[in-house]
């Protein structure tokens, strides 16, 4: 991918999307490097989107072996044990994704991301984490924030038919097109730690209930030493107790975290409803493309989707949004 101009091949392949975001954005995409840690259904959708978009480099990390559960929401891997046995998820996804767009470099990285040095993150424009505990998400976020050049962080969570995307672009400046010209916009994103530390009662009214539900279950997994997504409906009594504790501590009415919502999320465990993967993966794809290209208003800083009401909601959970 040398040289300034797009090749003829790129121009032909990317014609339709260049008409959306322009040649410059396409060029920037082709120079970008994205890391995806955790390859659940939503992450796989995201990877597909980025490869099709023509991102320069995509690095995958997910050491897990392929299981029935994994195959459920993964369209990259043929369900042939002879084929996948003994190979890790990232290897298989890598192979498949390369096929989608030969102009994109797809690779894998082995190891424990939370153990890597800060320098490891320098080559990435964006890091996407899923299937990840709160503790590790925070750790990775902190590492990214300490790098000299911005490394954007995106954390995705999908429990059944509910999904969440968290975005940290740190200090982000971009040109916003207005009807009467352009204006420079500056956004200051909180870290994950900062965002979820904001007292619940200080949040704007009518924040999506999915936010609270996610926080409760997150806390539950932490305190019970569970792996991400390792929950079931039998955990409900404990969850309800935790809910009460948290809501009391936060002076928030428990009605903000409906039982029905918690039930659905618990019962799903780590399973994802494929249409939600597609929707979330699509929104995430758009966001990363925006951030890399510098074009378009980025989402700040949480996105929620729940099939129960069908709304895709953006919540600004930062100090600038509190009263």
């Amino acid at each position, binding site marked *: 991918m040398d040289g300034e101009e797009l090749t003829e091949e790129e121009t032909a392949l990317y014609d*339709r*999307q260049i*008409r*959306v*975001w322009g040649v410059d954005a396409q060029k920037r995409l082709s120079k970008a490097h994205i890391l995806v840690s955790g390859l659940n259904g939503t992450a796989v959708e995201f990877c597909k989107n980025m490869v099709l978009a023509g991102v320069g480099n995509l690095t995958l990390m997910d050491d897990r072996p392929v299981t029935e559960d994994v195959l459920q929401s993964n369209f990259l891997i043929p369900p042939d044990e002879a084929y996948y046995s003994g190979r890790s998820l990232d290897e298989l996804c890598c192979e498949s994704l390369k096929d989608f767009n*030969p102009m994109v470099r797809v690779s894998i990285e082995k190891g424990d991301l939370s153990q890597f040095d800060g320098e490891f993150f320098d080559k990435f424009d964006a890091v996407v984490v899923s299937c990840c505990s709160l503790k590790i998400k925070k750790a990775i976020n902190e590492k990214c924030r300490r790098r000299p050049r911005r490394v954007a962080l995106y954390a995705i969570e999908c429990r059944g038919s509910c999904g969440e995307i968290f975005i940290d672009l740190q200090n982000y400046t971009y040109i916003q097109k207005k009807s009467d010209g352009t204006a420079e916009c500056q956004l200051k994103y909180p870290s994950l730690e900062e965002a979820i530390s904001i007292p619940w009662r200080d949040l704007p009214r009518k924040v999506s209930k999915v936010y609270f539900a996610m926080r409760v279950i997150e806390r539950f997994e932490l305190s019970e030493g569970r792996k991400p997504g390792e929950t079931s409906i039998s955990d409900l009594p404990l969850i309800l107790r935790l809910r009460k504790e948290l809501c009391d501590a936060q002076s928030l009415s428990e009605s903000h975290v409906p039982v029905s919502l918690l039930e659905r999320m618990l019962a799903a465990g780590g399973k*994802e409803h494929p249409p939600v993967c597609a*929707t979330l993966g*699509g929104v995430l794809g758009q966001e990363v493309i925006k951030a890399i290209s510098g074009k378009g208003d980025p989402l700040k800083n949480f996105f929620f989707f729940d099939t129960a009401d069908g709304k895709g909601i953006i919540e600004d959970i930062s100090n600038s949004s509190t009263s």
Partner: protein
Amino acid sequence: MASGSQLEAIKRAKVLMVGAGGIGCELLKTLALSGFQDIHIIDMDTIEVSNLNRQFLFRQSHVGQSKAKVARDAVLKFRPHISITPYHANVKDPEFNVEFFKQFNVVLNGLDNLDARRHVNRLCLAAEVPLVESGTTGFLGQVTVHVKGKTECYECQPKPTPKTYPVCTITSTPSKFVHCIVWAKDLLFAKLFGDKNQENDLDVRPSDGTNSTNPTENVFERRADEDPEQYGRKIYDHVFGYNIEVALANEETWKNRNKPRPVYVRDVFPDKLILQNGSLEKNCVTEESAVSAMSSLGLKNPQDIWSLAENSRIFLEALRLFIEKRQKDIGNLTFDKDDQLAVEFVTAAANIRASSFGIPLHSLFEAKGIAGNIVHAVATTNAIIAGLIVIEAIKVLQSDFQNYRMTYCLEHPSRKMLLMPVQPFEANKSCYVCSETPLLLEINTRTSKLRDFVEKIVNNKLGMNLPLIMHGSTLIFEAGDDLEEDVAANYALNLDKALAELPAPVTSGTVLTVEDLQQELSCNINIKHREEFDEEKEPDGMLLSGWVAPTEKDARLVSNGESTSAAQLAEKSDEDGIAPARSGTKRKQSEMSEMIDNIDDMKPCSSLDIGDQLNPQEVEDNDDDDDDIVMLDENPGPSKRKKLQ
């Protein structure tokens, strides 16, 4: 996660997908992952390179193959045990009749043109099968649910037909670049390389209004011995120089308009030496696919805006190349956006004309988009929409009609929502498609022929493919290939007769019944005679009402991409399109759905901001502590649409 009962319904379901393109690929994948086991998919297209940025089930090696079949094969790789039945066919084919549609629990559309959508809508109504419609353009998208008897049908809200322009704007007084494109494509290109027998308004003289049949017609005929380059210069001078001078002679036209400037070859290339292109690759390999004026002249970047001189060189070189390398194509070409040389020619011609008229020039990239009605598209929006389609489909399978939603995917959030669900509306009581309301047609029964009625009203406005027209119990016209000779001959005679002169004369007060058996649509039209019609406002010479007609900005005569002698239906576009905001009208619910369904006006509307101007009806939260406000539509609009109860 899908609940137990949902999974059951999904497993048992038989689903029809119409379209295996941008939305189709994402949809098929998501359906398969969600547990659907019996999917049928219809698509008449083959795979092209420009599809590959989003139709991810296809590879470079599949270019040219059937989309439906390749999509099926690709999905079976990760779900080998489900049943996917592909049809490489046009959904309008007779094999896809009501009986065919009846076998499905739900129909999911991933189409890219209005015509097919209307057709499927009618079949779904006739078969009483729910339809989930969808569309995307760039970052915008929507999903809507249509269930007979419960919600609006797809046609309850009028869908605007594509923009067309008055002939005189194209031939004499262009003011926008798109006018120049239409001229270059439908007039000049058609005249030079298309069917010689087609009517062509290229040499129309507005002053005398007659179609020129004088010796200048022969300008376009190239004698066998005429040097291609000389011929090219002659054409150039004729269309950009002489024709403009003739137009300038009519003072009236230019009273309130800026006068165009005639351009001659000698003006652009005063020094003849510069003109000799000395094509860089004249003697190189020249397979048809590699023939390109840009390569020949070393102009590499399609994003560049060429100067008048460069455009002129391209024009002349492209013309020369057509003659020298593609002689056999001349006489039967229609413009094809994937024909590089054609795109180059049209771009150059449009730019030279634009230059003449003081209109800003455009790059090949932009011109191609306009000339080819290209709809810009990305994978992410299609993925989002596909997810939403499956969510609605699952509700439909469970007849969960309280929860059916129309969902809009916005580029800019509206009240924190990027994905905005809205309750569907009740059927429009005056929808002629699903509510059998009669229509009114004002027409000059003495001068309008049956043919005009069939083409302009029955085919175009009513969207019927194989119509039957009856006056009382008399069949006055029937379309179809299987008619007996004498019957067909009789109809042919009828077509050329004025309505009032038909064997069963059609006059004021007559009620005509028009039917399409395949679509199972029957429509009564009350005829009212009217003498005069405004050429600008009613160019068809007839007016259909009672059917909620789309508002149109300009008088319709010539549409981009169609011959000047007939107003045809919507042109196919690459992907689902969006109609631009209509200036001056407050955007309402109905306009949202129209906007996204239809073919773009030419320019991408990436800055379209639907969210801000909308007064949507917010959906109630089904939560216990229902403190969310349900906003009622304060301006229900003339059609008084009612929310589903």
